[in-house]
């Protein structure tokens, strides 16, 4: 099968911080990348530093930031699902699963990335991760794509152990940084702290390696 990567995340910037480096590496290998982005992050708290957005302009700004970040990451196929930030878990779950499944059937991904259910903190993350898994479970287990899940709950190491996939992204850290910068409203404050302290753990963490769990299917 021809390699094709599918990303399913709810907020513009989820893709960049969590797996921007891995996406760039996939793109460098010539693999097409489709990104199903759930919302425009319209309820985000970060408004830029200095503040450039308000509650009403934020969705427009974040949409442009996302499009810009996608260029840096090498994502050529961005699809916005049109849900509203913070409300994904209250939407019709079956309809969401259907929409994800439709895309899966269309592009036949070989690798899928989403969050690890139960370990992704934000209710929107949880809802999209659950829906993604449910959509993939419609495919017979022997034909399912590999599913990599990001986890960052405070107890994820305790419960899940160490991530089994660790991707060294140092060769593309600079390009990942460009994608982070593209998400200006969301990253400006963090980047200021980084300017003050190049060793700042918060950002270094994002520029060295990316870590995932290969999802173990519970349903055949």
């Amino acid at each position, binding site marked *: 099968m021809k390699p094709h990567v599918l990303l399913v995340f709810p907020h513009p910037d989820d893709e960049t911080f969590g797996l921007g480096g891995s996406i760039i590496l996939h793109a460098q290998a010539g693999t097409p990348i489709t990104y199903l*982005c759930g*919302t*425009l992050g319209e*309820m*985000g*708290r*970060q*408004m*830029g*530093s*200095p*503040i450039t957005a*308000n*509650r*009403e302009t934020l*969705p*427009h700004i974040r*949409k442009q930031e996302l499009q810009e970040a996608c260029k840096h990451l090498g994502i050529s196929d961005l*699809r*916005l*699902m*049109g*849900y*509203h930030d*913070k409300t994904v878990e209250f939407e019709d779950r079956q309809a969401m699963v259907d929409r994800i499944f439709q895309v899966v059937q269309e592009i036949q991904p070989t690798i899928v990335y989403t969050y690890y259910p139960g370990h992704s*903190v*934000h*209710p*929107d993350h949880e809802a999209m991760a659950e829906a993604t898994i449910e959509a993939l479970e419609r495919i017979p287990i022997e034909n399912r794509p590999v599913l990599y899940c990001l986890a*960052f709950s*405070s107890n994820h190491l305790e419960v899940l152990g160490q991530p089994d996939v660790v991707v060294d992204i140092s060769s593309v850290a600079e390009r990942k940084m460009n994608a982070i910068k593209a998400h200006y409203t969301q990253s400006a*404050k963090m980047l200021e702290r980084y300017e003050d302290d190049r060793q700042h753990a918060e950002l270094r963490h994002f520029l060295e390696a990316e870590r995932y769990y290969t999802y173990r299917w519970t349903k055949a």
Partner: protein
Amino acid sequence: MQPISPEKVQLLLEQFFNRDVYLHLETTNGSYAVLRGEKTISVGSFVRNVVVRFERGMITGNGPYRVGLKMEHGWIYAEGLTDWEPDSTQNGLLLAGHDEEGRLMIAFQLSVTPFGTESGEQE
């Protein structure tokens, strides 16, 4: 947004008296607050495009500011407001409160037409 000018905000508030207007009111400490410590919980709420009608309304305080709107059967209240959108008009008033890092903690907005519902969904 810019630091609130209470006199200007008061004048605009009065333009909304005794008519149906759309309210967006929200407070949040962030969905990731839970990661800050075992006993911290994420707390937040929002209402968007709820139609309200009030007969009096004031902005008070010396900054951060408070707003209270008196309705026939109750009140609308917001505190911790620090900034406003100076482009606000009698058709729409945007106030917000940001913390020391510029993160939004509260938003209080009135409009005579519904607030945008751009979903980003592709045609």
